[in-house]
């Protein structure tokens, strides 16, 4: 366990250094930040002044060394837009992203597990209802989040006028972002649960339970499903990174004030410090969740527990 966490930490460190270095040099190589900041009709003198003001006139290696030293002390530099430290901007918005992720994850679990269990319990003879549901799940899996979001907006905001377009004030504004983000994971989780339930139902212990007179319902919920959910736990952990990719899109569409929409805005403004701060905070977040999922997985599956000998 300790070994695993240490390996993971080493991975994280390598990833962070590689990522920040790559981004730093890519930006310096391809864009003149001072010219961008000064605007299109600035005089060369003004550009030079801004360059000196932000320290962009120093040698590249000095900038890089200062930058890395800053990172080590959690100093990402200041946002060019808000003028505040970049990390503060990110941390301020992080709770909104976590809230949206938690809502979407909850909805995913509530929807995907029953759907998956139902689809998986066909035992090779799916009826018309299950076939139709399979087709829906299959198409939904091929539907990107922004398409889902636009369809939801068209139906519930434009046609029916039930829900507000965008924003984050009031619970009714939470519905569409949550459903959009959940739409990334529901089909995937449902398919995994279905496969695992189908697999579990073919196991010997199910046959034994059936022979002992357990009802179909009892077999599904007491014997097959708990084992199927084990694999689903692993999926939830590994798909968290995927969920965060989805939240970039979702937050931008619904003007949700999380780190995803911050990233897109910072990108459009060439706000380098914020882009980096977002990337690093997300890397640490994903690491924490993955390590947590590993631990949960170990705690839930007795076969994976280390023998104390």
């Amino acid at each position, binding site marked *: 366990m300790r070994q695993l966490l240490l390996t993971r930490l080493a991975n994280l460190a390598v990833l962070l250094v590689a*990522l920040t270095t790559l981004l730093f040099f890519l930006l310096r190589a391809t864009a003149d930040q001072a010219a961008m900041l000064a605007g299109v009709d600035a005089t060369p003198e003004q550009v030079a002044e801004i360059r000196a003001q932000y320290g962009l006139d120093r040698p590249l290696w000095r900038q890089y060394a200062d930058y890395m030293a800053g990172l080590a002390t959690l100093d990402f530099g200041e946002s060019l837009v808000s003028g505040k430290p970049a990390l503060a901007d990110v941390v301020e918005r992080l709770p909104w992203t976590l809230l949206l992720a938690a809502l979407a994850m909850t909805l995913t679990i509530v929807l995907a597990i029953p759907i998956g269990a139902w689809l998986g319990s066909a035992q090779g003879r799916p009826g018309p209802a299950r076939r139709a549901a399979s087709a829906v799940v299959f198409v939904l899996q091929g539907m990107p989040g922004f398409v889902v979001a636009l369809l939801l907006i068209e139906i519930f905001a*434009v046609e029916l006028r039930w829900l507000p377009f965008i924003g984050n004030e009031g619970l009714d504004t939470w519905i569409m972002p949550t459903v959009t983000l959940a739409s990334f994971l529901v089909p995937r989780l449902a398919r995994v649960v279905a496969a695992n339930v189908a697999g579990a139902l073919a196991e010997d212990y199910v046959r034994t339970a059936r022979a002992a007179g357990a009802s179909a319902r009892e077999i599904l919920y007491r014997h097959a499903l708990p084992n199927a959910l084990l694999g689903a736990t692993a999926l939830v952990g*590994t798909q968290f*990174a995927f969920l*965060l990719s989805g939240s970039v899109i979702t937050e931008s569409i619904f003007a949700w004030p999380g780190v995803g929409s911050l990233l*897109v805005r910072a990108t459009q403004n060439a706000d380098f410090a914020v*882009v980096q701060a*977002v990337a690093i905070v997300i890397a640490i977040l994903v690491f924490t969740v993955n390590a947590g999922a590993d631990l949960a997985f170990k705690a839930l599956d007795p076969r994976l527990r280390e023998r104390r000998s």
Partner: protein
Amino acid sequence: MATVTPTAAPAATRLGPLFAGREFLWGALAVLLVLLVAIVGPWLAQDPAATTLDRRLLPPFSDGHWLGTDALGRDLWARIVTGLEWSIAVAVASTAIAALIGTVLALLAAERAGPVRTLVLQTVDAFLSFPGLVVAIAVIATVGHGYLPLVLTLGGLSWPVFARVIYAEASSLMQRDYVLAARLAGSSRTRILAGHVLPGVAPTLLVMLAFHLADMLVAESALSFLGLGAPLGEPSLGNMLAESRQYLYVAPWLMFVPACAIVLVVVSANLLGDGLTERLRGRARRAP
């Protein structure tokens, strides 16, 4: 960019019953049709940039514009096929780059233990545990828009998806007797990898190509939707969707048409991937 593992879709959720085991056939047909439209369509359609200001926001099935026109009076069908051409061109090229880098590195890593293997596996782990879109946005933000930056970014960031799966298969093939025999017979590393291991992983590679193509199309559309993909003036399925948001009240078809196009392409490619998996698994079962 989603991470895809080419494991077979569970029997319960496959469309098998619906298509009576012909997923591969239908998937292949649909993908060929999409490719045909993307390649031939732009030649036959009207000029996608031609504006007719007296014929703006025409609904579908209008005279001369069977899918209607957008806010500048541009023909929607012409824009869809041009957008499809662009999106598919990005998806195909970035899939090819990802497959090439991923396969080569996976084979090299599988061939023997050493620093190359450690480095490749570490990089793969690190990449796959990170939200791809976030990195893609950060990189695109710095290197700029356009076809080449987009393709290089998407391909250069998604190769670990191939590397992980191909490595797992290749390293198990390396244990086989025929590889040992080839080695004893004095075959070179390149010859063993290219002549004996690569053919063995080819079926898996084929399945992954289909799924990856769909993923790259979605990634390209997502970036273009955010204004970070296709350059200004270049229609793409993603930026057409982004533009359509202003006209949801007056012209919802501007949203429905590109949305349907994206879903159609992705579902076709997924169907092909599932069908291929099923076929190849069937073949493996029959083999002794």
